[in-house]
């Protein structure tokens, strides 16, 4: 890949948990092109969150490197925004104040000419409208539904114009209908803003629908098992989920997760319970 925005090389992460040494990531290699949407799927505990948090600078690596624009990352940075599944909004601030939170921070305040302030106000307003939050702009987060709250979290992450958006199961707690709406919204935004997105999910359909490429990870040790390019045009619509290509890829990835999860069903036990006929 020429000039990837994110370059992950031989990434290692070990956790020492009560004496045992857990290899959460082993030799992970991945490049993301600027503007690319990549989703991470895999069995629970395969290191998806760990990988995302290292790229976000929230967790140090045990080995290997992550470069953004060719420079090794050192901690969190305003070029990489993060959206969490839960509890990240500030309940004491209104929706608008949450979205403008970064404006209070020194890094964003330092260069405040009048036109900067003006364009920031304009951007906040635009994000509020884009996310469909105008009618709740003055509400507090705990007055909103889960879907609305995640819209606020996304708007807040986008406020500082990050070039990279890191999302860890951001829609994991939402119902299927709300999710579909959010999918089209986040696709729309990422194309509009040319944001590079690294997105963790448990939902294979979501992973395919959103991504240019789906990365399949496997546990024990956590590693990248396969990378699937999604054979769909950039502008997605919900009908594409019914196409043969989509369905075939979904089957392939689901099989991959099953094979690598390391959780084989005990057929002997099922037999004894009378659940299945002997093979």
């Amino acid at each position: 890949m020429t000039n990837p925005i994110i370059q992950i090389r031989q990434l290692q992460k070990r956790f020492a948990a009560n004496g045992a040494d857990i290899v959460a990531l082993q030799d992970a290699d991945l490049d993301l092109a600027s503007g690319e949407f990549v989703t991470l799927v895999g069995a629970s505990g395969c290191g998806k969150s760990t990988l995302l948090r290292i790229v976000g600078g929230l967790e140090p690596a045990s080995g290997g490197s992550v470069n953004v624009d060719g420079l090794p990352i050192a901690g969190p940075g305003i070029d990489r925004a993060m959206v969490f599944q839960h509890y990240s909004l500030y309940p004491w601030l209104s929706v608008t104040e949450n979205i403008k939170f970064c404006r209070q921070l020194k890094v964003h305040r330092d260069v405040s000419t009048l036109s900067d302030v003006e364009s920031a106000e304009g951007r906040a307003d635009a994000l509020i409208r884009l996310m469909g939050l105008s009618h709740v702009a003055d509400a507090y987060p705990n007055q909103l539904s889960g879907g609305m709250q995640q819209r606020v979290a996304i708007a807040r992450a986008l406020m500082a114009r990050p070039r990279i958006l890191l999302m860890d199961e951001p829609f994991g707690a939402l119902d299927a209908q709300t999710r579909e709406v959010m999918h089209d919204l986040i696709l729309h935004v990422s194309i509009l803003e040319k944001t590079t997105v690294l997105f963790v999910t448990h939902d294979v359909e979501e992973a395919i629908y959103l991504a240019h490429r789906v990365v399949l990870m496997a546990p024990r040790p956590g590693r990248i098992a396969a990378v699937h390019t999604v054979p769909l045009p950039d502008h997605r619509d919900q009908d594409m989920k019914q196409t043969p290509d989509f369905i075939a890829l979904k089957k392939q990835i689901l099989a991959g997760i099953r094979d690598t999860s390391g959780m084989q069903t005990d057929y002997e036990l099922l037999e004894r319970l009378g659940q299945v006929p002997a093979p």
Partner: protein
Amino acid sequence: MTGNVNPRRPLWAIRGSLERRAHWLIAMSGLLSALLAWWWVSAGGAIDPVFLPTPPLVLDSAWAWLRDGDLLGDVAISVYRVVAGFLLSAVLALPLGVLVGTYAPVKALFEPLTDFIRYMPAAAFIPLVMLWVGIDEGAKIAIIFIGTFFQMLLMIAEDVRRVPMEQIEAAQTMGADRDEIVMRVIMPSAKPAILDTLRVTMGWAWTYLVVAELVAANSGLGFAVLKAQRFLQTDKIFAGIILIGLFGLATDQCFRWAHRRSFPWLYRR
């Protein structure tokens, strides 16, 4: 009921809430039935009023205390001691608690020490306090301080630790530095819990009043109770205890009111 969008709330819903009127009705009947039970038992004549005076006797004694004694002076000095001891605790425990809850080295330095000291009975410090601080106002304030500070420190540290990591990490990825995270995320996020901690420890400060006024006091509600005990004036003991309870209840309500005023976002659904 017309114009009411919500149907009546069921009384026994798990973790349900009550309508304002129902709440006050039930709360008042709880207080009143305690009063009536006391009245009924004490006025029955089966029990010597030296052991259990009747409510009117207690009221008389409080009235006499106000008219002939120095009730207002006793109240003022006791309120001063409780508030001074409590404020001294709060002023020190707030910044220290935030640091203990935020930074591991501060926690390692102070937490075991605090855990150790907080099990020591405040009353046992009286001789030492008299030795170190003397027997004037400072000594009484010191006892209330010892009784509240260490618990308050640990509880505030815990309040701060309960701020969701996601809130902190979101700020980090938006470019907040360490000071900004403490001042703009941890503090505002923990504030409601901290105010609740202050409310609870204020209650403890009131309970230490009698202990504090064991130290060479010659005024105060706690002192009056102790003196009444010497002369077996049970009615005055009752009056003193009930007054302390009422002042405690009043401060508690003030804290609750301040909580609702300061954190409207918590009460809006």
